[in-house]
């Protein structure tokens, strides 16, 4: 046995003892009632623990996810609770992590794996594009790959090179992958549970600048709501959310850009302009209905994303809205995205990232009549 898994007390291949302990732990957290300040990191961590508790085939692995709990602490405590067979460190090799997860999913497991940073996931690109995305289609559904690849992504944390990429467009462009990205603490919990439940592979893009953002949420209530929805076969996959209702123009954003869009809407309200903010939530599948409904109502739209604008998710959104809402538009759809440059150094990132002022400038440019 390898040193990594033999130090576990469940080294005999029996995972049920660890699951029983986890049940006790989950029961303890379930007692908390009423909304409390919770970070997105905590919500994601709780979602992982609850999923592992609910299903012994859910495994978590990656780099530094064991004893350390992940460099962002998203897997904190999972090894202690579930044992080294259910949450463990791998050798430092991203293609190996994804490729091994494919094999585990073929053989009955539901792996939830962590890529340490957006730009460190690229060695795994071949496994993701050639196998994760294609296996179900190639085998006419005989082989399902119920796996989640968690990717901390985006900037705004003052990270050095290779730590701030917005890589979602690579995955959204690949047929056969679903791509989720939460923007709120509650969605962090809800969407990660749904991603793990999904029989399709999900790229789970976590906005790393929002890991420490807090909302008032009731985790026990979220847990119960998830259980009820899951047993009824319901999922919020493919559904965008109206993050703020408005009437004059629609801001379409996702992941790390949603709080920025909300701040812009707040500032616009002070100037007497009512902006609706749509949180896309799942890039694939995309919720054309909710987005189009909003734009048809307001007649104006700005798409906001941190990623480079050229050939991106934001360009896709503009194209789709234009195709569906042309006769309702009072102005061309604008985009506020990252510039088409490699992600800048920390002291320069504020010039790169879509900010409130740049969004309001774009809104001002929407051919208002007065």
């Amino acid at each position, binding site marked *: 046995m390898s040193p990594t*898994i033999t*130090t576990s007390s469940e080294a005999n291949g029996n995972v049920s003892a660890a699951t029983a302990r986890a049940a006790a732990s989950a029961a303890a957290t379930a007692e908390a009632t009423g909304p409390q300040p919770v970070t997105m990191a905590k919500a994601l961590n709780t979602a992982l623990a609850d999923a592992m508790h609910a299903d012994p085939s859910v495994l978590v692995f990656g780099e530094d996810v064991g004893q350390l709990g992940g460099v962002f602490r998203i897997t904190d405590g999972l090894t202690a609770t579930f044992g080294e067979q259910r949450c463990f460190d791998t050798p430092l*090799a991203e*293609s190996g992590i994804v*490729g091994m997860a*494919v094999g585990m999913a073929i053989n009955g497991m539901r792996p939830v794996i962590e890529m340490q940073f957006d730009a460190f996931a690229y060695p795994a690109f071949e496994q993701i594009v050639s196998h994760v995305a294609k296996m179900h289609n190639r085998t*006419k559904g005989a*082989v399902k790959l119920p796996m989640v690849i968690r990717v901390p992504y985006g900037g705004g944390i003052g990270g050095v090179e290779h730590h701030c990429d917005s890589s979602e467009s690579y995955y959204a462009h690949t047929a056969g992958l679903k791509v989720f990205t939460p923007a709120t603490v509650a969605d962090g919990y809800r969407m990660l549970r749904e991603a793990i439940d999904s029989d*399709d592979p999900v790229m789970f893009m976590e906005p790393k600048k929002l890991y420490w953002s807090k909302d008032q949420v009731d985790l026990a209530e979220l847990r119960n709501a998830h259980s009820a929805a899951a047993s009824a076969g319901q999922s919020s996959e493919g559904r965008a959310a109206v993050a703020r209702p408005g009437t004059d123009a629609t801001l379409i954003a996702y992941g790390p850009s949603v709080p920025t869009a909300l701040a812009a809407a707040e500032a616009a309200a002070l100037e007497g302009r009512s902006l609706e903010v749509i949180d896309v939530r799942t890039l694939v599948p995309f919720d054309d209905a909710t987005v189009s409904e909003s734009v048809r109502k307001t007649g104006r739209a700005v798409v906001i994303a941190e990623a480079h604008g050229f050939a991106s998710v934001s360009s896709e959104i503009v194209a789709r809205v234009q195709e569906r809402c042309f006769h309702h538009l009072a102005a061309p759809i604008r985009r506020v995205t990252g510039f088409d440059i490699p992600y800048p150094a920390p002291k320069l990132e504020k010039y790169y990232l879509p900010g409130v002022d740049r969004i309001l400038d774009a809104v001002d440019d929407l051919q208002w009549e007065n």
Partner: protein
Amino acid sequence: MTISADHTAHPDTTGQAPAEDALSEAAKKFGITAEDYMLPARHQIEMVDPDGRLKPEGEQGTEPGHEYPLPGDEELLAAYEQLVVGRRVNDQNSALVRQGRMAVYPSSHGQEACQVAAALCLSQGDWMFPTYRDAVAVMTRGVDPVQVMTIFRGDWHGGFDPLQHKVGIQCTPLTTQLLHAVGVAHAAKLRGEDTVVLAMCGDGATSEGDFHEALNFAAVFHLPVIFFVQNNKYAISVPLAHQSVAPSLAHKAVGYGMAGERVDGNDVVALLAVLDRAVKLAREGSGPLLVEANTYRMQAHTNADDDTRYRQNSEVAEWRAKDPVNRMRTYLTDRGLLDDDGEARIREKAEAVATQLRDGLSEDVPVEPQELFRHVFEKTTPQLKEQSALLADELARDAAASQNPASQEAAK
């Protein structure tokens, strides 16, 4: 030389042996040092020479700790039958490509001993992860020949259910499937099952990054995976010397802390002996093993390749003399295990498989355009539903137009 690894970063708190000790255990079992256990024997293992004669025991390449008993007669006869079928399958498929019935076929002509042994060494609950050139191994494992060839027929990218046969899809991106093998073995181990997984690749593929990652993961997690490298000397046109200057590909094992062995890849007797033992060791908990089979790709990479541009006919002729099928026929006939009747029966069986392939691949298989959208996801998306409707509408209009020539005329 002492080989050890520093595993102190993960202190052993449960009293269970780390991987390093597992190697010492293995060495103890065979009365040799850990490095002698991991390094391949000085010479490749070969039992029956190209003329079909059993080599004297002292000349089979075996050493203490690298001992290989001769496989049983029944196993050898079964292997010979599969060799003959495999050769017939290879040549039938190449003919079907020439006739335009298949787009392409990467033939394993000359490598049939490797193909057959790779399948026969496994039990029913074990898994195999083949490459695009391993169709004969997949058929030997029991998958329907026409289903195996569907991938080359052109109506879908695969034709068999991997879960039903415990055979991975035939993989084209080199060595990516080795990691899937590692994952299947890891999942089985976590559930306490004694599954062994055989992961196949070629000599050129050992240059790929996933080869390294797969061997390392298998070794670190101490998984029952046998990495079976068919060294057929060429990666399309590039000879082995341009891929690696290691003493042998089997020597790569020691770098990962696993045992390696070299075997004559045209000698099915030696192949079965080495692979049977590897499967047994892996099932007993030895961790992964690496087996390099020394063989030769007798034909071009595929029908699209021209091998006269990069190798001499004399080299090919040299290997023709080492043919795995003829060698086995001579050996079994000389031993009195095979007579004319037995040979005729086997030929008949091979011919039946060839007929099955001709019939199956000559059929014009109707394709169903809506199937394009059906399997992309387990739970489809609104976008794919729209695209599916678009295609259905196009097809409906085409059909209507072809049923009503007048409207076709009007449309002009």
